[in-house]
């Protein structure tokens, strides 16, 4: 399993976010999550420009094993989706923390970050 990068924050449901620039964050799922899911075969991405709330169900990731909902770690507007996942969802398996990002959000309220888990907390959470 890959190490958890330091500047990332997590939901207990295994989504990560990291600040890209100022108010823009990228969102994906953790390496632990992709490993548990197995081969990923389909990603349903959120609609561009849609407004989402922290904790909203915004996307779906489907592996050979099961389909899982993806929750947004932050509130804001979807400003970009990773359309390369449409044809090559397996990128999430090979690069969950980098190339396998799902979407980017323009954050409405960065104080929400405090509700998220730190890498240490998330790593503890995965051991449970």
């Amino acid at each position, binding site marked *: 399993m890959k190490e958890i990068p330091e500047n990332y924050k997590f939901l207990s449901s295994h989504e990560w976010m990291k600040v890209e620039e100022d108010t823009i964050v990228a969102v994906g799922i953790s390496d632990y999550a992709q490993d548990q899911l*197995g*081969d990923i*075969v*389909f990603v*349903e991405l959120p609609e561009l420009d849609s407004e989402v709330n922290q904790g909203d169900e915004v996307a*779906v990731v*489907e592996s*050979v094993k099961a*389909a899982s909902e993806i929750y947004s770690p932050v509130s804001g507007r979807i400003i970009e989706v990773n359309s390369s996942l449409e044809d090559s*969802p*397996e990128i999430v*398996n090979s690069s969950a923390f980098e190339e396998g990002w799902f979407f980017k959000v323009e954050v409405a309220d960065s104080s929400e970050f405090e509700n998220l888990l730190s890498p240490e907390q998330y790593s503890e959470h995965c051991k449970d």
Partner: protein
Amino acid sequence: MTQKTALFETHLAASGRMIEFNGWTMPINFGSQIEEHLMVRKGCGIFDVSHMTFLDFKGPGCKSFLRKILANDIENLTEDGDAIYSAILNESGGVLDDLIAYRMPFGYRLVINCATKEKVIKWIRQHIKEHSLIMTLREDLAMLAIQGPNYLRVISQFLSKTLLDELKNKRAFQSVIEDEMLISKTGYTGETGVEVMIPSREVKNIWLQAVESGANPSGLGARDTLRLEAGMNLYGFEMNDEISPLECNMAWTVSLEDKKREFIGKKSFELKKEKGGFHTLKGLMFKDRSIVRTDHEVFLDNNKNTKGVVTSGTYSPTLKKSIALARIPPSDKRICFSELRGKMIEASIGKPRFVKEGKIIF
């Protein structure tokens, strides 16, 4: 406590991800099940299928007994090692199990599913009655499936030249037998290949030699997607006690050739066939990549009046599409719909098989 095959430690050493499967601890994959799947289509994969149940039958009554409980006719097995695929039916014509029956030097061998083991053994014991035979559960055997276009190169590593030549001359569903080893041209992938039955104590050696010569260790995950692409049934999904062979694309395995043969379930089968109007198994290919999984409904019309059910659904690594087997009412429709996460997705309806020997045939 789950049972472990003789290869348990070998799988762990090869980073096999182990899961519980009908009371057995088995590898689901060794990393990527999609890569394992594609390796079988293009090269060669090896599977541990020692969780299967092996039943040996000896004695003068075993032939007449098996002709009574099997829907296919073992009368057609003319040489030792010849095999047939068959169902065991109950009185109402439902499928109790599907199996492969082999003619053996000592009598016959049935390879049945592990999930149905207790039920089928009980059923057989109930029906032996006046038949003079001995049934032995062979818990000392292991089984490997070596599948894919390169299988001959792999098995040439551990077979004598004589045995290999003998095997090359065999057709599908025939075998060669040497001492306690049986190698049959059968499989569950839609590729050419063999299945090897061998005493458990010898299996590790063969597994390692096969892997050494290019067979890729593969788990139950790839086994399931391969069989689905090949349009092969899985007990408990395409068929069960209440499903007739007519409804799960198994009518071809019910032999009515010998009109005098009275096998269990025959009357119900003939009645249902005569009456017609039953659901049949079809193959579905979806436009969307979302997988439509077991028990999901499919609709043949827009107002959802005529519907069928998905028996198995998966992502097909060969077609790179979402595919399924589904039991649907009689219809000449070529498309159907399924509702998934609030969206209607369309599928084309075809024969219940998608891939044969590496080629897409849907």
